């Protein structure tokens, strides 16, 4: 059990460092066991230093923490690749720069696996290859909007949703 965990950690930790550096250029991230000799007696720390900052997870802002967590999610996905991925509003507290970095990493990974991303952000809608609009016309019944292309989607990201 201990060997399995340390073996998995070694791979996921490398993935994490690589992906964090990709999402936050100039930053550095590491996964560290609190108690490397007895891993089951301690936790797993996600240590991240955004570019230009001092280090420490508890100093990170809301958006900086999300970027570290996203790097960890991608690191775990790389350990056990899946044919398709579903992401639900992972970009909600990111500024435009970070939302763009995240969406473009999804686009890159969408070359080898299918990515379905629920998003309200214009930046992510612009990067996507295909667009699906879901609405409920006030009666509580969900329906898909047919002929919902890129233009309509980007407009949604911009305008008040009511027009849908």
């Amino acid at each position, binding site marked *: 059990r201990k060997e*399995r*965990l340390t*073996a*998995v*950690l070694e791979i*996921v930790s490398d993935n994490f460092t690589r992906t964090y550096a990709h999402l936050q250029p100039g930053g550095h991230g590491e996964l560290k066991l609190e108690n490397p000799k007895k*891993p089951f007696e301690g*936790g*797993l*720390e*996600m240590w991240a230093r955004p570019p230009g900052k001092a280090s420490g997870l508890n100093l990170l802002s809301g958006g900086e*923490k*999300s970027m*570290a*967590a*996203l790097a960890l*999610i991608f690191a*775990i*996905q790389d350990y*056990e690749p*899946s*044919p*398709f*991925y*579903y*992401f*639900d*509003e*992972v970009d909600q*507290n990111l500024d435009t720069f970070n939302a763009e970095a995240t969406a473009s990493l999804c*686009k890159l990974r*969408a070359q080898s696996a*299918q*990515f*379905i*991303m*629920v*998003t*309200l952000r214009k930046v992510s809608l612009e990067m*996507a*290859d*295909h*667009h*699906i*609009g*879901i*609405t*409920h016309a006030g*009666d*509580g*019944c*969900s*329906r*898909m*909007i047919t002929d919902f292309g890129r233009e309509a*989607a980007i407009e949604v*990201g911009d305008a008040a*949703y*009511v027009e*849908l």
Partner: protein
Amino acid sequence: MHLVALELENFKSFKGEVTIPLSEGFTAVTGPNGSGKSNIGDAIQFVLGPKSSKSLRAQNLKQLIYNGGEKGRAAKFCKATLVFSNSSRNGGRRRLKLDADEVRLTRTIKLGRKDNINSAYHLNERPSSATEFRRLLTEAGARGDGYNIVLQGDVTQLAIMSGRARRRVLEDVA
């Protein structure tokens, strides 16, 4: 292998039959708050087999059946089908170990007498089981309970959870 379509019938806020065609590459789903976007994620997990109904944001399976909204009539059953393409393109092996170009995984729940729920699984229209689904999907790397499905709020949870909880996440992966 990729998800070709999602066929829903009376699943949560989707009344009647609704088919959502999907493509390879990067697909964005958008719409107003409460329109039903996250219910699509719940439908995918419902078929792939999450650890518990809690992760489908429902207190019990009954809450997955269309409840009629404010003025409509509640349905008595709901169904969700994941349609996967499974071609042996480029001469490789099929990712889902089944000799078919298209694989349909269907899960149905029906409201029985005294509010009990009957759950049924079908694989390309023939009866199947949760265990067969799980075996087939795990071999293809499409787990229902891994981080290939990131639900609303999962990122924030992962960022603020304790070190021990995060270690357990990694143990699940191992």
